[in-house]
């Protein structure tokens, strides 16, 4: 191997390692923070206040959240396939074990409005 190509090869390796490090460092630390306590999602005019809520749990933990709604609809927790009706001005509570890994949505089923993104890490 002549020296010019050795330099190119070394350059490639250095570049690739730099990219890997950059990604590792920039995304590190986010995976082990999970949601504690009971989160309340407030629905105003059929939309979640403050945008779609994000909840993160590890597998086996208990998922707990409450939906306060000013509209009557059905809350559908996809993937886990849990459906609960909520009346206008009422609220509904969810409390179930995080048994399925992945990213799931909860929607106001009638309005097709996403209100929650649930992440369950292994």
């Amino acid at each position, binding site marked *: 191997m002549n020296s010019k*190509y050795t330099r*190119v*090869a070394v350059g*490639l*390796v250095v570049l*690739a*390692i730099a*990219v*890997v490090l950059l*990604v*590792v460092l920039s*995304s*590190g630390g986010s*995976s082990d923070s999970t949601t504690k306590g009971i989160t309340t999602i407030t629905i105003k005019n059929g939309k979640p206040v403050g945008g*779609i809520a994000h909840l993160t749990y590890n597998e086996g933990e208990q998922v707990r959240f409450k939906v306060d709604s000013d509209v009557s609809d059905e809350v559908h927790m*996809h*993937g886990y*396939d849990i459906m609960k009706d909520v009346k206008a001005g009422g609220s509904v509570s969810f409390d179930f074990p995080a*048994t*399925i*890994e*992945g*990213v*799931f*949505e909860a929607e106001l089923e009638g309005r097709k409005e*996403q209100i929650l993104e649930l*992440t369950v*890490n*292994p």
Partner: protein
Amino acid sequence: MTLAFLLPLAHALVSRRDLPIPAWLFAWGASIVLIVSFFALSVAWRSPRFERDRWRPLGAALSRALLGYPVQVLCGAIGVFLLGFSIYAGLHGTEAPDRNFALTFLFVTCWLGFPLFSVVLGDVFRPFNPWRAIGRTVGGAFAAIAGQRFAHLPYPRRLGRWPAAIGLLAFVWLEVVYGVSGGVSVGVTPNTAATAALLYTVYTLAMMALFGVEEWCGTGEVFSVYFGMLSQLGVFSVEDGRFGRRMPLAASTHWATVPGSLAVVIASIASTSFDGAQEGAFKGAISRTFDWFSEAGLSLTASLRLTDTIFLLLCFGGVALIYLIGVRGMASVSGGPPLSKLRTGFAHTLIPIAFAYLVAHYFSLFVFQEQAQFTYLLSDPLGTATTDIFGTAGAGIDYKVLSANAIWYVQVAALVIGHVAGLTLAHDRATAYWGDYRQAARSQYWMLAVMVSFTCFGLYLLSVGNA
């Protein structure tokens, strides 16, 4: 107006998304890719092996059984029935995408299943191809009645596989770009999919009448060309009416000689990249472009379609650019063939990358959605809750069959194996093109850079999260 959320087809079907691969796995994956690549350079062989591999027939009895007339008729009839049934279900069934047989059958079972089976078993789409079956039947009937074969136009050779490349992009556009409602991407509806299938049937049969059934299947029929391309990676194939086998990957060395083949493989990589990136890596950029268009006065639907179309084409351009830079670099190594020959000569080395991207992005969707295909979609194909043919209409998808870890390992393994296969083919081709083995090795620094780019980009897409 900001983009609330994007909901491509995968979403409309499966109510679960993959977790992004964790940083440590990304780092391991990328490191293994680099180590494997440099190891490959040091142990490389000096004369082409895959190029010179010869096809060997398997037993004559097996060929008769698999390729005989009864099997051809049966497979063709099954293909035509399933296409017809999908169109019927799409037009007359429910508009709920996850409850209609048509969407899952066309976009998951066929679109993702045939690539898998093509690599393992050879070109299995060919016998089941409904348009080929109809075309051959009509052609045969014409010959029997008229007493002579139908006179076709000569297919313009320069056009090559370009119609298939454009058709492939159009299909993906329909799948992931077209279905928009109120500025939100909702995926294609069963009705639209069935209408598109009808239009495609008319178009394909017209082209077959013009240029001949086999000619059009080899160059313009999107699914024949695409699944046929992936079948080149496997060991089994049919030649001269006989069933036989080769070394894995060897058949692909002769695939890209038809013009436009490079565009087909690039379109495949680009469309998978776009689908994987639209919710992750490109989400911010897509959202900003969408806002820009809608503030400029376009309707929400037009803004989103235009934005997604631009990003799909950018993916195509980006993949093409990386490959062409690599080819340009190779051309600078003396003793090799001219640029134009290099450009088509290394196109087949991207087929393993295309397949790896496919597996990495759609493996979990396929496993989950096939449970629906073989339970409630089979018992209640129209989704009207009035039929329960096999007593499985009430079944659901068990998301616990695959753990997040299992999905991650399959994704990273697919990319690493695709990378190694691509490098192997590229090195083999280089030893055929450059008489001097040292020059051949030098030219391959460029292809190494191309492959590392694609594989690390693939890992990056997975680490940001995919749909």
